[in-house]
């Protein structure tokens, strides 16, 4: 301890105090303040940039959600349109089918009617023809074989009527 006090140099103490305080003041003005300010400014800039990036990310997510929604809507709309078209098609087919059926039925009916009338006329013609033929046959038979013509004819007539009514 005595050695310490003995070695203590007031001059060195004085110079250290003066030089060091001077150094602190000088460095505060010319070094520490500009450096710390610049660093702080930079850190602020980095923070702002990070915040902006975060915000952009959020916007992006929102935008994506919107897009998704739009896409979904469009898909539903397409679906609906397709369904409608399909329905129309089915209906058209159905209608056409019905119409065609109707037309066909009508035609069939007409044909049937025509066939019926034709059949009737053919039958009448056939009757007449057969009657004629029968008369001819009967004439020939009567000419050659039968004496009582009127009796014979009556007989044939009654027989034919019996035949046709069958």
């Amino acid at each position, binding site marked *: 301890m005595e050695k*310490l006090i*003995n*070695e*203590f*140099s*007031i*001059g*060195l*103490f*004085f*110079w*250290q*105090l003066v*030089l*060091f*305080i*001077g*150094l*602190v*003041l*000088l*460095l*505060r003005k*010319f*070094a*520490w*303040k*500009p*450096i*710390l300010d*610049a*660093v702080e*400014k*930079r850190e602020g*800039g980095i923070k702002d940039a990070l915040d902006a990036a975060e915000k952009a990310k959020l916007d992006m997510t929102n935008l994506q959600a919107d897009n998704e929604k739009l896409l979904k809507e469009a898909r539903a709309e397409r679906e609906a349109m397709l369904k409608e078209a399909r329905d129309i098609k089915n209906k058209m087919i159905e209608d056409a089918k019905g119409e065609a059926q109707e037309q066909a039925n009508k035609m069939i009916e007409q044909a049937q009617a025509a066939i019926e009338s034709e059949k009737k006329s053919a039958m009448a013609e056939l009757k007449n023809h057969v009657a004629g033929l029968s008369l001819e046959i009967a004439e020939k038979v009567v000419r050659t074989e039968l004496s009582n013509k009127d009796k014979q004819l009556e007989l044939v007539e009654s027989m034919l009527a019996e035949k046709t009514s069958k």
Partner: protein
Amino acid sequence: MQNIISRKTICLLFLMVTTFSFAKEEKHEGEGDIKTEIKEYISHHLLDSHDFSLFSYTTDSGEHKYIGFPLPVILWDNGLKVFSSSQFHHGESVAEVDGDYYTLYHNKVYKTDAEGTITLDDHHHPTNVKPIDFSVTKNVFTIFLVGLLMFFVFSRMAKKYKTNSLPKGIGRGLEPIILYIRDDIAVPNIGEKKYKKYMPYLLTVFFFIWIINLLGLTPLGVNVTNNIAVTLALALITYFLTTFTANKNYWGHIFWMPGVPWPMKIILAPIELLGTIIKPFSLMIRLYANITAGHIVLMSIIGLMFIFKNWIGSPLSFGLAFALSLLELLVAALQAYIFTMLSALYFGMAVEEHHDDH
């Protein structure tokens, strides 16, 4: 003989310690003399000096030669006396200024007569008049140099920020340290709101102690932080900054400790008051003792080389000194860190806001 000299020289170069006089090798001295000489050399090395000598040697004719340069001597002895330290001839002659005679005795300036007589008392202390010595000594010169270096480096670094927000060159290495002091020393100890006004001091004291401790490990042979005057000056600044920026809450805790019965308050007040002085005192002693101890041990180990004059001594001494030098590198930074950290802690106590939790 030649062998021993070259081995020593190489080791000296390796250790980058140019502090031992080459002259000693030429003499055939007894072991006891060498031990005493080493002891004296170490204590001499730890002292400040009035000239900046890098090393000295003795010529064949016995003349002492010093390599270095003289520094101004400034004395207050009934008026300011300024003269070059070269007038002392390294303590070998008496300097005459305006009819007064001064001489060096154990690196201290004493007033003397034309013959340079020094009268000693029973305790071997000179009784001559000691003028107040404001000389620019080796340490003052080093402090000034370090200040200049710091100003140059950091103001240049600050200028770079004007054009670019990112550090360039040496700033790349220094910026993380500055940020470390801000984010891990100042902010946690002082608080987010008030740390800014202490930053210039904390940054300056950290870099100052660190650089000057590192310089102490170089072969320049300067030891600034092992002077109690230097550490006292630094600790005093911390003390005054703490005292003059302290708020009401801090003084309240010292003089009238809240939350304890009143007899305790009376007992605690002087203890707390003493504590405010002990805190910077411990700062002063810690830095001084760590650096001084490091220098003494390192130099003693190097000195071993000259005591063991055989093949095992030099490698052993070299290995130990090398390991210790690495440790001292760590201590240099650690002491700077501790000083800064504790200063920040004391500032934090001074500006702490009132809490109700005690």
